[in-house]
């Protein structure tokens, strides 16, 4: 599903910062992978490259068989909106839109009709348990609810890849747990690949594989055995 071959990312011109150093990685379809590391370890750079928001300095990145590094901005954006759902620590909902409007936005951006998008967004909201809050705006929702909306938005177009960037970072433990539960359920249901960037070891443990990153390189890899359900 995700294949990185010898990917480097450098910033700056005078004094070059090597954010990622010759990274190689392969993640299979349906796999749940957690990426852990301290601040400045290169997690964000990695995430930006994978979702096509940024281009690598060298190397190749393939998502679902598509070579991202060879694409232009528009093509990468299209790839992103068809293949990648994103969840952020700060939710990043549009404050002017209601929950259902936020959820339907990706579909509308793809050019689907209003009726179809609303129907699918409604179902998705129902799926995350927020049917009653559909017409509320983000500032009227709690943190957990906001993240549910964000998850609904990320999955509404059934992307094969779900990227979650510290999804529980802004939430209390109980709510965080709920969100992780929801992600797990939905992962199973949608059969998507999940890449979870987190500080939270508990969250990481719920994945199939944990990668540790430091100074732009993967320094550790650990496979987690789950009692109830293993990887597909």
């Amino acid at each position, binding site marked *: 599903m995700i294949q990185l071959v010898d990917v480097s990312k450098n910033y700056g011109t005078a004094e070059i910062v090597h954010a990622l150093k010759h990274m190689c990685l392969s993640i299979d379809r349906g796999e749940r992978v957690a990426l852990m590391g301290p601040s400045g370890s290169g997690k964000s750079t990695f995430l930006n490259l994978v979702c096509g928001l940024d281009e690598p300095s060298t190397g190749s990145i393939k998502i679902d068989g598509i070579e991202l590094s060879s694409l232009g901005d*528009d093509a990468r954006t299209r790839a992103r*909106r068809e293949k990648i759902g994103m969840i952020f620590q*700060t939710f*990043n909902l549009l404050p*002017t839109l209601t929950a259902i409007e936020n959820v339907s936005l990706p579909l509308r951006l793809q050019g689907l009709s209003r009726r179809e998008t609303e129907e699918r967004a409604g179902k998705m909201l129902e799926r995350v348990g927020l049917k009653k809050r559909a017409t509320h705006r*983000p500032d009227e929702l709690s943190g957990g609810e906001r993240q549910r909306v964000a998850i609904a938005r990320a999955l509404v177009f059934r992307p094969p890849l779900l990227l979650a*960037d510290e999804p529980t970072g802004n939430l209390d433990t109980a709510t965080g747990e709920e969100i992780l539960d929801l992600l797990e359920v939905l992962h199973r249901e949608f059969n998507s690949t999940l890449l979870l960037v987190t500080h939270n070891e508990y969250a990481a443990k719920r994945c199939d594989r944990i990668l540790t990153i430091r100074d732009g390189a993967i320094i550790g890899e650990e496979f987690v055995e789950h009692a109830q359900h293993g990887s597909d």
Partner: protein
Amino acid sequence: MLGALWFITFRQWHSHRLRVFLTVLGIALGVSVFFAIRTTNATLLDSLKLTVEKLAGKATLQVTSGESGFPEEILDKVRATPGVKIAEPVIEVVAHTQFEDQGTLLILGVDTASDQKLRDYQFDRSKTDVVDPLVFVAQPDSILISRAFGDKHGLKVGDKFPLFTSRGRKEFTVRGTFKPEGIGQVFGGNIAVMDIYSAQFVFDRGHNFDRIDVMNDPAQTVEAVQQRLRESLPAGIDVAQPETRGQGLENTVAAMREGMLVTSFVALLVGLYIIFNSFLINVNQRWKEIGVLRAIGLERRNVTLMFLGEALVMGILGSIVGIVGGYYLASAASGLMGSAVASVYGLVSTPERAIFSWNYAITSVVLGVAASLIGAWFPAHAAAQLDPTMALHNIESRKREAVLGWIRMAAGVLLIALGLVLIRWTPSTVGIKVQFVFAGLMLAGLTVLLPKFVQWTAQALRPMMSHFGGSEGALAVDAMIQAPRRSSATVGALMIGLMFVFSTGAFIQSYEGVMDRWMKRMLNSDLIVASSQLLRSPTYHFSEELGTKIGAIPGVKIAENVRFAVIPYANDSAALIAYQMKDFMDRVGYAVDDGDEKVAREKMPLGEGVLLSRNFSARFHVGLGDTLRLQTPTGPLERPVLGIMDDYRSEKGTIFMDRALYKQYWKDDSVDFIDITLNAGVDPLLIKQQIERLTANQEHAFVYTNAEFRGWVFGLVHQFFLMNNIQLIVAILVATLGIVNTLIISVSERRREIGIIRAIGGLRAQIRKMVLLEAVAISIVGVLTGAVAALFNTYFMVHTVGMALAGYTVPFFYPWLMILVTLPIVMVISLLAGWWPARRAAQVKVIEAIGYE
């Protein structure tokens, strides 16, 4: 402390050059239009005055009697008055040349023998250019021309060239030239001098003079001599100092000037909105910075000071740029206005370059800085009130703006209502300035309601925008609904600008409607022969002979000689129209609008009464049955007012009298218009051709069919309302600048949102579309608010301004069509204005925008 703040501010300027540029531009625009209009006005008046003064030479007093002139016997009386050292008679004629440029020539008829005591002609000295002075006076075709005019048309001494005179087209012989200095500069050098008696003869002025220029004995005061002259001359004759006479011209162009004054304040007001908007951007862009500053312990007061200090510097900068720009604008506009004044009022002036007045410059800087400070005050205050924790917090937490409390809403409605009530029921005697305050109340009310209005209209627009513009459309309008105040300033600027455009347009259209009905009623002759392409020419007239000749053409039933003059009345001036009353009343089919029809029909042709236009009656408080007292060159004239007419010929008011009565008292038999009625079944075009053949190369005459004449009058009306075009340009400039401004703030404020949309799959093209649609939405809301404001302002215009400036009201008229036409224009302009912000939005770097804090 403040030093550090300055450092921060200047860093801000550096990194937000565009915003600084737009703010300074906004101030500069407002100031430049204000300054330009003031300067144009001043230049025009200065040019009018300068023309009067240059033509006056060393004269300390001028004896005049409106435009009609006075009998030349007055000269002996003036010369016999003790304290008069020199008294020289003058006739001024603007004659039409037959050169390619169809230009005009100002001919000064003077007693060339003695006139040089008053005026310095700077004649060319070379012997060969001197023609025998005896020949000059002996031959009435003798003319002296300025060298500028001679050079322009290749004329030398001894050459002949044609001019249109009251006695037809005549050849004149150049007998000498004078240098382009002193009087040679007047009227752009298109000036010539003739012997006054020859001028009387060829321009059919009888034995009248237009003016006597007097130099007093230096041993006596000007005022004493003035007083003595006033006592010894008939009351219809005015004795004034040239400077005062120049000032008197201000009165003449008052209506146009006041209109321009309003435009200049509109420009400033609109500038205020732009400044407000710019500082909103400023505060918004520095939201986080302010939060940090507040968090590290900066007092609220200093936050305010920081922004106000910035406003001060920008205000000064913008004002200076505005003055420079305004000066050049004024230079360009002065010529335009000069020709408009010449067309409408027949006043001769040739502004060469705009005069620079420090007075206006300082006023403009003060107003520009004041507007900047006022515009910056609310955003600065808001910045100071900012809760530092909020400022540093995430975007979802930022509360929606509290749009408008009920108190404010009620205040807005109340202000509008108050303004309307005051406009409706306050007597016009309070004066136009106070009435403008009433209009200001309405405007203030509208401004208070603006955010709410923006929200409502945006909400109403949302389904439509969503339908036509998809999710981008909806997102675009959402921005306006959620943050109505952000777009309010731009919408407000659009509102004010468009309101004036719409309501002036409405006023003009209503006025034209009235004019049309009036002309159909009163100007119903089949053909009209006019002596000028201008509304009227104060100096060039026909002789009665032409009327007689035209009357003799087969098919012509009657040719009426009409004199249209402007006479002094009650420290102002009024139009006087002398008809052959019987013919006139027969032709229009009625005698009076108010008054006894029978009495008027009986007495008017006998010269036993006068008719007044309704606006004359209103302006000078002379009504039906009163006695009108006029001062004529031959003494006082008193006649009862026999009727009131609806007449829109002059904004000063019009007096109607029989031609014979006019001739008797003014000793003036010249003709300005010939109204021709044809026998039934005669083709007007055929007769028109015949008259044109009759006058070809003989008279400078313009023959119009009834329809053509009406079209021509409308052309003049448009020229009078030239300021409306200026308003339109200002409105468009403001629309552009305001929209660019607002969109930039919108883009910068929504950088994160744009980043999110991009992150979840929004294409660059979609972002561009969103921003452009927001521009369209703002323009639609702007036009709508302008249309609403125009509703109130049009009422003010037709009800109050018309009355104050011209003494008549016109029916209320709402310019639907104009608004409908404006909408797509403003939409296209806003799309153009939105292009650059849209590009910027599309280039937002997603990673930075959604930022990982």
